[in-house]
């Protein structure tokens, strides 16, 4: 044999010897003699008393007890116990044997014996910890998003698919500077991977990736309905229609406490037909007076659940001034009937009012059996991840009784998803450290009680100790997404962009004209103009004037609001502000009146570079009076009086003087 072959074969031989030595090493066994310690060992993650799915990956953990060797034995009522040993406290069950043992012990309780050899060489045995293996399996795959806890910049984030029975994780889409900054809100039809949407934002523009039977297309969801992009979405079980929200979000920061806050300036729902590419936005789910978000179809597809809150501010659609009432915005839980044949919805039905539950509701998710609905309850707004008091609740849809999940923690427990058999909920929680979100799985029993949640097991048991990425938006799947990562990123960069179209009149036009006007020439003209261009601010202003004159104040408010939103720097915008403020400050109906909003609008109307018109000051005075600030009202009314006198507006002067008497008597103004 030549020298060359000797050199080649020598390392191979050494390798074989080493491998044989590893394979034939004596197996770990529990020590015969030990000192019993009457407490459970400190382990992380803590799986004690959890109910676990029979198909979950091995629950690996680390023992935080001082020692030089650690032995763990997993025992059940059936099957051969599993023994593993380590020198660093890591307990890593082998995957195949773990599954064999779990399958043999379905529906029973298993326990883990822990032995630690201390520095003196003596073995200690801590109290066992137990977990119960459920009969029902959890859907095998979960898709989630993993990002850093950044606030504004996102250089890299990804949507990943994890096999829950092993530790295999595959990226679906990892965004970067080229493909996009953000990937969010992935949704699947009926937990099947064939139909999926995934929203993205970034250098290639914003949009929605639609996966349909193995093919990916790009959809531009911007329409005249809303200049923003699609957000939260839910598939109808038949996979034909996608309900999605269009949110105009703003991120801002607190100077104390939890740092971040997300606020919805505006939101509406739409129904996107994936065949026609049309978005239908009926008034029932896209009312301009309401902020609707978080759509979720029931399992039978007959109801669409969502949450909504009254919109109590008016502002430039492009501006992002945070309204002062943002902390008072609380969402109700609402549902509408849905007719999949006609793609129509029924009138909204409030299931749980925010006032009733004392908080804001978000993320409604009906259970697969249709009996209960899970939701998040928090203090305000519609973005629970940054509110530590956010908890998960269940609502009995028959009795309307609601109760918190037993597995809630003092920290944020939010975004959740039911398994297809309705026995498991996977949710995002910050319970470990209040900052980094991790995925937890809880068992829901027949009585709809939840059990202690277990954190998503990882291959490296120390993973969570140093993991700075947070997991969120988990969605369970029965089968894996077969489309490779390159198809998603290629779809963003090269995919043909399909433009969504708005089907039917704009919701604001629907709100103004529930029926198309037939006999009224003026209204007919306005209607036609608004149908042609639902972003024509001036036409809305004229419509507002028309409705105002006719005493149709509800419609006038909607029209003025829209005009102000679209107005920009147009000269008529100040007039619209003043008129809207007047209605909101003086209307006899409590439903329509809103003093704080009126005051804000009137103040905006008075912010003119030159002399402030007397009429605007008069409205400001009325807004002050409505807010019970009578001293300011009197002061402003007197100023208005001077301005009217200077301008020779005698009729107005007379009216202002009459109003002044109201304010001096500490009475708000009411105008028919």
């Amino acid at each position: 044999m030549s020298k060359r072959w000797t050199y080649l074969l020598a390392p191979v031989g050494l390798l074989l010897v080493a491998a044989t030595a590893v394979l034939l090493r004596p197996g770990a066994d529990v020590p015969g003699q030990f000192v019993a310690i009457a407490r459970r060992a400190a382990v992380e993650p803590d799986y004690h008393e959890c109910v676990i799915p029979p198909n979950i990956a091995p629950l690996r953990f680390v023992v935080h007890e001082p020692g030089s060797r650690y032995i763990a034995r997993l025992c059940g009522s059936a099957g051969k116990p599993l023994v593993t040993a380590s020198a660093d406290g890591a307990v890593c069950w082998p995957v195949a044997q773990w599954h064999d043992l779990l399958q043999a012990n379905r529906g029973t309780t298993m326990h883990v014996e822990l032995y630690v050899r201390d520095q003196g060489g003596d073995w200690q045995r801590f109290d066992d910890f137990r977990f119960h293996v459920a009969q029902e399996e959890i859907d095998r795959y979960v898709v989630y998003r993993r990002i850093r806890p950044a606030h504004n910049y996102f250089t890299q984030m990804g949507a990943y698919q994890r096999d829950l029975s092993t530790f295999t994780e595959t990226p679906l889409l990892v965004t970067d500077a080229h493909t996009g900054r953000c990937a969010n809100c992935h949704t699947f039809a009926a937990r099947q991977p064939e139909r999926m949407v995934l929203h993205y934002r970034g250098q290639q523009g914003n949009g929605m990736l639609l996966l349909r039977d193995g093919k990916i297309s790009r959809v531009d969801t911007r329409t005249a309905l809303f200049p923003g992009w699609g957000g939260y979405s839910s598939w109808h079980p038949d996979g034909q229609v996608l309900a999605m929200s269009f949110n105009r979000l703003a991120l801002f920061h607190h100077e104390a406490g939890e740092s971040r806050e997300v606020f919805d300036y505006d939101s509406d729902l739409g129904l996107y037909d994936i065949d026609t590419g049309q978005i239908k936005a009926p008034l029932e789910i896209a009312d301009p007076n309401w902020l609707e978000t978080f759509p979720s179809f029931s399992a039978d597809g007959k109801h669409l659940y969502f949450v909504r809150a009254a919109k109590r501010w008016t502002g430039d659609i492009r501006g992002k001034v945070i309204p002062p009432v943002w902390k008072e915005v609380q969402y109700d839980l609402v549902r509408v009937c849905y007719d999949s044949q006609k793609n129509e919805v029924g009138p909204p039905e409030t299931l749980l009012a925010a006032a009733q539950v004392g908080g804001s509701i978000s993320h409604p998710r009906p259970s697969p059996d249709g009996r209960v609905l899970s939701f998040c309850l928090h203090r305000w707004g519609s973005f629970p991840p940054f509110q530590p008091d956010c908890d998960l609740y269940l609502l009995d849809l028959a009795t309307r009784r609601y109760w918190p999940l037993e597995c809630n923690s003092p920290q944020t427990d939010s975004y959740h998803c039911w398994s297809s058999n309705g026995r498991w909920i996977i949710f995002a929680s910050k319970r470990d450290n209040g900052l980094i979100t991790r995925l937890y799985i809880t068992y829901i029993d027949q009585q709809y009680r939840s059990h202690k949640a277990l954190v998503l097991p990882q291959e490296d048991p120390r993973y969570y100790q140093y993991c700075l990425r947070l997991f969120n938006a988990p969605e369970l799947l029965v089968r894996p997404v077969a489309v490779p990562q390159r198809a998603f990123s290629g779809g963003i960069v090269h995919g043909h962009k399909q433009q969504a179209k708005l089907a039917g009149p704009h919701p604001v036009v629907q709100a103004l004209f529930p029926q198309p006007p037939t006999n009224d020439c003026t209204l007919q003209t306005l209607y036609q103009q608004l149908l042609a261009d639902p972003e024509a601010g001036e036409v809305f202003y004229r419509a507002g004037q028309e409705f105002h004159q006719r005493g149709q104040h509800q419609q006038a408010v909607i029209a003025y609001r829209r005009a102000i939103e679209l107005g920009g720097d147009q000269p008529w915008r100040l007039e619209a502000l003043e008129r809207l403020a007047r209605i909101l400050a003086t209307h006899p109906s409590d439903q329509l009146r809103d003093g704080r909003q009126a005051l804000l609008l009137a103040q905006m109307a008075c912010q003119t570079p030159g002399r402030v018109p007397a009429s605007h000051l008069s409205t400001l005075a009325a807004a002050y009076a409505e807010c019970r600030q009578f001293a300011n009202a009197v002061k402003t009314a007197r100023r208005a009086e001077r301005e009217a006198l200077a301008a020779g507006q005698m009729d107005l002067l007379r009216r202002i003087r009459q109003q002044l008497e109201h304010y001096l008597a500490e009475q708000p103004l009411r105008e028919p």
Partner: protein
Amino acid sequence: MPGEQVRGVGPAARGRGDCAPQSPQTLRAPLAFTAKIARFGFSLARPMLLLSLAAGLYWHLSASVRPELVYHADGPAASGPAAVGIPVFLRGGDFRAAFFRRPGGPMEYCAAALAQFCYYPWAGSAILTACAVLLYANTALLLRVVGLSGGWLWALVPALLLLWNYNRYVLGIDVSLAIALNLLLGSAYLILAKTSSSAIAAPLLPALIVLAYLLTGPSAMLMAGVCVLWELLVRRNYLIAATGLATAIALPAICAWWLQLVPTWDYRQQKAICPWLAAPDAGQLAIYVALMTMVLLRCSAVAVARWRPSVMQHVSSAVDRLVGWLCKAVALCAVLAASVAIALGTLDRQLRWTLQLNYLARTEQWTELLDCLEGYPADLYTASLLCDVCRALYETGRLGSDLFRCPQQPTALFQRSQEGAFVRGSGEVLFLLGCVNEAEHVAHESLEVHGERPDILRLLARVHLAKGNPAAARVFLNVLRNDLIHGDWAAWYLQQLADNPADAGDSLVQAARANMSQADRLAEQATDEDVLLGLLEHNPANRMAVEYLLAYYLLTRQPAKLAQHFERFKSLRSAEEPHRFPPLLAEALAWSTVGPLRSRPQLPMDAVDPQAFRQVTEAMQLARQYGNNHEALDAELAQRFPYSFSRYLITGRSGAGQ
């Protein structure tokens, strides 16, 4: 067989006497030239020379380049076109796995680990010297294998280019190591191919290219290029050359598209598919080009010798005539001169100055930072540097006297929100002030933009401790524990947390906790002034906030407001401090009395400085005198009242005059 015909072209083969090229005279001429040099008696001089060059390089690096400056220069610290900094490195399987999953990752991982040692000046210089030596040795080996005459001398070219890169603070340890490894693999292939049959060489080349690509990424194209050229021009084994070429072209595409080994689109576009983009720096690219050129020339010479033996004979005889001790001496002198010229002539002194300022700030050598600032060009001041300078002035008690020694801006004190991610010291300043949430915001943005840098992790740990969230702090400390340099500190800190969980945190954390306000407000609706006033409302004894508030009024040219809040500063002064107020404050107080009588603040008697009043009066006279001639006015003010508030107030300029 073509491959057999050129067996023994290399020196190793010559030694065995089996050199049998198709035209012995042609190829023997350059070989004889090499042999002549070898016999010249330089056998001892050569290693001595190389050793001296290595020692000189080490000395130059540690004395002039100073790799420790680069260690601290991640992210926004360095101004200028070059991206200066070292990669993040953490111990642990997860971090390592991210590298080992992609082509070129192993080499980047090793380079990142080595780069951490730039923290220690001696170690950084040693590593960079070792890289240069490795590059030299492997280049020399390859040139020797391809039979280039004077290979040991030519091999200095890439090393000198590397020195040029070092002088521009492009350390590129990963690129150096990748090139060296590829040269080694290339040499190994050429040696094996010479002694093996084509049946072995044919699969060996693609296998080695795959190995090189997996280990070093796109740098493997260098190795592939060398081997393909050799097969094509020297051995004329077109099949093997085509196989190698196809492998080199197809491999990145396969890895990117089919195997999805490359993680992101950016990486796929720039690194895996386009190797020339892997080394975007011209200096690094020059090394590739130089190496390929040398190999190409040698291979072409062999090809020409085979094609037209007479031409090469003519060239060789001409070269032979030139060879001699004179030529040798001239070459050596040229190498030495080039080394010295590159070392001294290409050092980017301006960038070094910037890096040094950043280094002094990061190591909290505040007095030295202010000393080093003298004469620094005004156009190089960045937001980061201004923030550091203000901090240094505060730490040395000179904020009220030397604020306008550099070109100031109203936003110089700190940057809040996401902009803070690009202002290096901003997060720490905000934290020390007590704006803990703002510091958290800035630190989280920095983490996303710059990665898991030790100072960011440390700040985040402190922020969460100050906010009373030790569990979150522990996560950041656990990550920091995996840092090669700062791991011990993190482990110590974690131990402190475990031992004393109730009173967690060091003195900085305690100070921030005492200063942080509990009153909530939306950060976006608050100005810097609101923030500082909010802090003082919570803790009037927050000296940093007081000084920063007064500096804020100076920088925003609001002397009246400064006068309004002057009592805050007065109340903080201890009995030991000099009675006289800092000159800039006295000057601003004097300016606050200018204007309508009713808006003049009531100044305490001890705050009235007659000299400041005189200065203000003179400055006003000058302003009236020069009218709209701002340039002349500024020049006059800079001359008469340099670094004064009066000049900044009137002209908006500070620092040295034009």
